[in-house]
């Protein structure tokens, strides 16, 4: 395996500190360099693009290739640096993919947890349109299982079929749980006809499109969504309960809607889906680098769509507060 073309990870951030110290921040970790190592890294930095060999960099910055080799290899071990020529064509197992997936997803979910919408609800600053909009969009998203989970089952690879069939059969009616909550405020017929926001439609359609073309990638993306829903861990449960308590306090009319949210979380947890993705990963043949990239592209895009889903609720209902979003008829426009 060659290790001659070092490249700093594109999402890594270099932060210069005092006294010749610098930190490389990447996926929630921080690698600190100081003194001579920090100075050397700083000189190398403009050439860490994966197109310049270690010999070439050494020549340009008038340093010894040996020193460069040593530093790049150490940084390579931390993960902040890669080598463009390191592909040995080796495939990775599903279980290895599972671990890689976990690492990236934890980082990609952070902007969703940091979205200002949560704080607005907890502090009572969200509007009626935003709060009821949140309930409706959650309903539309869960009801979207009819589309993407069915498409996934119908287009599944042989290894994925049993998992995706079971997934659809166990979850297709979860939208009804949310609908029950909304029925405390709106007529059933109107809930069924109401239109999701474009951002919610975007999430459901992206799931459906992924489901049709890449069974494993679809579920890897779906797993990211599941990781926000039903962790069952105490600290996560506490923060979810705090959110619901604040919502009940500031928006008492959502009481029954919140009961439905909780009923859905309980229903999800009872299904014991937390190990399903690991089981899937264990059942698939090893993946090529291109297959890993394709699946992780879907996962990253899913995180972006989930962020869009949150942002759509926050932004769109602030500007267009009409709720529910009744469909057009021949006189409405």
């Amino acid at each position: 395996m060659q290790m001659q073309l070092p490249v700093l990870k594109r999402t890594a951030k270099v932060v210069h500190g005092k006294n010749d110290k610098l930190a490389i921040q990447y996926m929630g970790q921080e690698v600190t360099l100081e003194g001579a190592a920090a100075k050397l890294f700083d000189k190398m930095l403009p050439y860490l693009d994966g197109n310049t060999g270690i010999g070439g960099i050494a020549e340009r910055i008038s340093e010894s290739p040996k020193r460069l080799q040593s530093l790049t290899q150490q940084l390579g071990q931390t993960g902040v640096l890669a080598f463009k020529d390191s592909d040995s064509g080796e495939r990775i197992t599903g279980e290895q993919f599972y671990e890689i997936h976990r690492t990236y997803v934890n980082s990609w979910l952070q902007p969703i947890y940091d979205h200002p919408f949560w704080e607005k609800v907890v502090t009572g600053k969200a509007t009626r349109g935003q709060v009821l909009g949140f309930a409706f969009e959650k309903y539309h998203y869960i009801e979207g299982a009819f589309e993407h989970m069915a498409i996934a089952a119908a287009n599944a690879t042989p290894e994925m079929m049993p998992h995706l069939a079971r997934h659809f059969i166990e979850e297709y009616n979860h939208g009804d749980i949310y609908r029950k909550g909304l029925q405390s405020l709106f007529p059933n017929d109107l809930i069924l006809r109401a239109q999701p926001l474009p951002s919610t439609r975007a999430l459901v359609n992206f799931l459906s499109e992924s489901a049709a073309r890449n069974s494993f990638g679809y579920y890897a993306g779906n797993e990211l969504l599941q990781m926000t829903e039903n962790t069952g861990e105490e600290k996560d449960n506490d923060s979810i309960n705090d959110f619901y308590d604040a919502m009940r306090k500031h928006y008492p009319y959502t009481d029954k809607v919140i009961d439905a949210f909780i009923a859905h979380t309980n229903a999800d947890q009872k299904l014991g889906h937390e190990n399903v993705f690991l089981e899937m990963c264990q059942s698939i043949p090893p993946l090529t680098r291109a297959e890993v990239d394709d699946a992780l592209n879907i996962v990253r895009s899913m995180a972006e769509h989930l962020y869009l889903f949150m942002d759509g609720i926050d932004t769109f209902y602030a500007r267009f507060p009409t709720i529910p979003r009744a469909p057009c008829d021949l006189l409405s426009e």
Partner: protein
Amino acid sequence: MATTLGQEFGVRRVYDATPKKGVGVSLRLSDREVELGPREFDLYEKVAERVPGIRSQKEVAAELGMDEARLGRLLAALQSAGLVYRADAVPATLSGVELHTLFNKVLPSWLDEAFSHPFWERMTSGRGSRRMYSGWLIELYHYTRNANRHMPLSCAHAHEKAIKNMRAKHYAEEWNHYHYFLKALKALGFSEDSVTKSVPLPMSLALSNFMRQAARDDILAYSICSAVLEGTTVDRGAYNPYYETCAKLYDLPPESIAPIYAHLDLDVQYQHSDLFLDILSKVDSIPAARAGRILDYGHQLIEHIWLWTDSIEKYYDAESNPMPRPAFSKLLD
């Protein structure tokens, strides 16, 4: 069980509400302006919020502290002002040409809504940036290239020969128009490789996924979306000042604008804005439910454009976001 207010009445879409100094609010509908005093506006808002609820007319009257007869008079007044309509007044069917007439009447209001995002004012007042202009162009490139994901699909799902032919001809005339945007982006300094290998924002992808959904669902729903999109490019008087102002404000080379004008001129030359009428002329009768669904697709596309603009502004406004957006690579990310 008593009928709900929503089973008896519908609320017309209000495209804009402008407060009038001390004298109430002016509501803009697609065909009129309605001025309401502060008290009338307050009552209108309360009624409009309750029409989609689960209460009967009698219960709503009690909630608003009035008797049923008074609520009836209020609803009649709102109806004669054009703000609400009786649900039983919706015609059972209409012809394709009649639907086109209705579409033509509401299209200007829809387009106003689509382009009501503050991004446009920001760009033309000098508070935008060359980066934001370029980002918008990158997303236009993706949106135009992604026509290849939905236009041929609409041909595949059209059942009538005449309509299939019209959709196919439209595709044949449009499929490679993304080259115009690539040319403009190259003039702005982007390499061909960086643009063609980039990935669109989720909302840009959502636009083409929504068009794919429409194509599978109903060829007339697809065609109204296509007509809305064509409607955004027919008026040179509307788009020229935008480009000219941006060119001046953000020092854009003429070579980056010329391909866009060439593209818009070609669209006008093809007379694609007449296509929807040509298609609808082939349809004798459309039941109200289908016609409502078709209109709804058109209006949802308007909302997609608004949210697309919002995404573009938010993403490209942040200097640290990569531009163009590279696809994920496990090696590089």
